[in-house]
């Protein structure tokens, strides 16, 4: 029996978490840790990778390997982490600004590459860390100190985009629904290939519109939805009120992963970081340039 005082895996000892009291990131952290524990992952073989934002601080509050890079730039880094050591489980935590604004291009191409990563987008429909400007998912009409006349452009639809580009696993969760979120994260991690989970997350400090109550009221859990059907999934992705929670799409025949197709692993599956060329290889190749 584990003594009561001992920390469970991933929990760590984080006295000072910089989120606001009541922030939706707390329940997401709880769901995430429960999922990692549920999957019985080894914290030393699990990397939490992120960019910058409130959501992106998550890796500092979970006891695991950590890569906390630049705002918007986590996906190329995470792709390489998995490619250089496929034995690692790599989870990316990100915000709606981090992933859908600054990081948009990497998202597109990460979906195309399909590395075996789990991408959690904490979607609070606002820029939290920079104090409340609109994010790509802010609803039309939302006023902020920058969007003084209200947001007047179309909110970004992450799930629809992922679906259009052929992502193999797309789900939507809500921070307020802890168990469901744990469940969805577990499924996402198990999915072989890129799995995107857009998680509604109340920001109690800056988003007074999309609160816990609002999300409760404006979401429903998918029931008789055929998640293996891309056309059906598209219609679900376009639904806006209420918003569906659950697995929107899971490809029954998931395409091969990026790292799985690399020539470097064609005959030898030793993680790349343990293998490298050297002077002998260079000299052998030089032979081709001898006159």
């Amino acid at each position, binding site marked *: 029996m584990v003594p009561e005082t001992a920390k469970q895996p991933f929990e760590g000892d984080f006295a000072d978490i910089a989120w606001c009291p009541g922030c939706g990131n707390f329940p997401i952290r709880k769901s995430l840790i429960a999922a990692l524990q549920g999957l019985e992952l080894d914290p*030393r073989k699990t990397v939490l990778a992120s960019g910058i934002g409130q959501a992106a601080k998550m890796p500092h509050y979970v006891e695991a390997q*950590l890569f906390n890079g630049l705002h918007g730039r986590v996906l190329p*880094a995470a*792709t*390489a982490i998995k490619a250089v*050591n496929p034995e690692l489980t790599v989870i990316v935590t990100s915000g709606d600004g981090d992933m859908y604004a600054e990081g948009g291009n990497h998202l597109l191409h990460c979906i195309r590459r399909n590395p075996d990563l789990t991408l959690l987008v904490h979607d609070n429909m606002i820029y939290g860390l920079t104090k409340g400007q609109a994010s790509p998912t802010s609803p039309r009409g939302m006023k902020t100190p920058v969007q003084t006349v209200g947001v007047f452009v179309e909110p970004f639809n992450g799930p629809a985009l992922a679906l259009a580009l052929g992502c193999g696993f797309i789900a939507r969760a809500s921070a307020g629904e802890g168990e469901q979120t744990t469940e969805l994260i577990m499924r996402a991690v198990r999915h072989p290939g890129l799995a995107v989970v857009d998680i509604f997350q109340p920001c109690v400090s800056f988003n007074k519109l999309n609160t816990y109550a609002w999300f409760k009221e404006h979401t429903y859990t998918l029931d008789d939805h055929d998640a293996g059907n891309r056309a059906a999934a598209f219609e679900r992705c376009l639904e806006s009120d209420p918003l569906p929670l659950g697995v929107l799409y899971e490809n029954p025949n998931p395409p091969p992963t990026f790292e799985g197709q690399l020539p470097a692993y064609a005959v030898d599956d030793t993680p790349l*970081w343990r293998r490298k060329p*050297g002077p002998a290889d260079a000299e052998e190749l030089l032979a081709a340039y001898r006159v």
Partner: protein
Amino acid sequence: MPDNHTDVSIVLAGEAGQGVQTVERLLVRLAARAGLHVFATKEVMSRIRGGVNSTELRVGTRPVRAFVDRIDVFIPLVNQTMPHLQRRIGDETLILAETSRIDIHPGAVDVPLTAVAEEVGKALYSNSVALGLIAGLLEIDAGLLGEVVGEHFSAKGGEIAEANREAARRGRELGRGLVEDGRFSKTVTPDGDKGERLLLNGTRAVALGALAGGCNYCCAYPMSPSTGVLVELAARQDELPLVVEQVEDEIAAVNMAAGAAATGARPLVTTSGGGLALMSEGLSVIGNMELPLVLHCAQRPGPATGLPTRSEQGDLNLALHAGHGDFARVVLAPGNIEEAYRLTHHAFDLALRYQIPVILLTDQYLVDSFHDLGELPELESLDDHIVKTKADYRRYAYTESGVSPRGVYGHGAGFVRSDSHTHDQDGHISEDLHETRPRMVEKQLLKLEGLQAEALEPVLHGPRDYQTLLITWGSTLEPAREALENTRRDDVALLHFPQLYPLPLAALEYLGSAERLICLEGNATGQFADLLLRELGFAVDEKLLKYNGLAFTVEDVADLISDL
């Protein structure tokens, strides 16, 4: 100038796609096999077909490694010219053209390349006729010519190979005829050096140097003139433990490299100035995360899109300062092909030992120029300097050198935290301004002390008791060296810098001993001269700057020296 050259400079000009590059490649191989020394460089327009491109081939008795203005034989394959090319054609230049088709060069001697090719079979063979023509001028053995042509075309089938061999043979006769008629009288003879020789360009040297340095991850976005290194490595991705990934943009490249390095790989990123500019933020994260990265930047003329396929040395300031905040970095700039090989390997060594970004500056001229050379230096196998982590591992532990033991994910009992904020020794975000912030900044900058102490020394060419010192960096080395050798002045020497930052203190004595300092640079403002002043306190007396998209020629430097 008296014609005391021991080499022949041949320039072919043709449209993009007309096959000038095939002639270049074959001729280089042919001449080298004939025991001659050979150098080839090209300058091309930013287009796939049409326009006017040119290739210079220098074939000599002694090693030839630099670009010259002088054209001994000019072979235009296109009825159009460019002022910068036209300017190089002098009274002594023998112009060989198919005058029926190409009528803009008044003094041209007719060489019916197409007619001969058609006699052999089809007009397509005219490149082989041209190759033969040059072989004839150079008095290269017919058997060797046939062999080289045959090898090249063998893949296309026996008939085609045979036709090309015949075309080359006929071309060679044209060439021999010109020599016999006294139209051409330069002879170059093998220098008797029978050692095996290598034929490399800068691109290959960088790629091979990277492999020698253990590069196992290359990520890049195509950009002239840096793409060659990506292609060269890609060709090896199925034989070597090596991932080569073309990414969506340059920002992805540098951040992907960060992830790769944090996981234990040895990444190389290759790009040009515009790409390096885009990677500026990423470079700063490599610095702050303390990760090893080699970043190759093949320079082309800027600003902005500039001249995509030409040469310049205008990105030094960017290499020195890209990224925000203060962090340790190294900038290296190979002067020639051997150095490109050696310094790329060295760049990995420094990156791995110090956990820093190392920028390797080349340029279009260097990466695209070929010459024959002897054996390359033997290089050592480099250590990763990776430790197996213990439970109390701290990614950014303070040490005397500023370098913390390098742990990687999943290797050992510890947690490895690579972080982009100001962080504590564990890699967690810190806002302790009193102690952690200044100390972590100092820890990172401490590396510069070690780096400076082992900075590569500048190399002196020419007399030790010079009065005037020419200063070069990057690919200006070889044209300057040849010019200096030709003049045989005992008061002028050349100081070449393979390492640009941190600058070696050994330079102080060299600079201090000169009465006059002249800096030669391929940019419009004298960026290296500025650096010398800033870092070493030496103001150069004069700058020779070139920024028209072409590298320095031997004559550019010779003119400078003769005016001294």
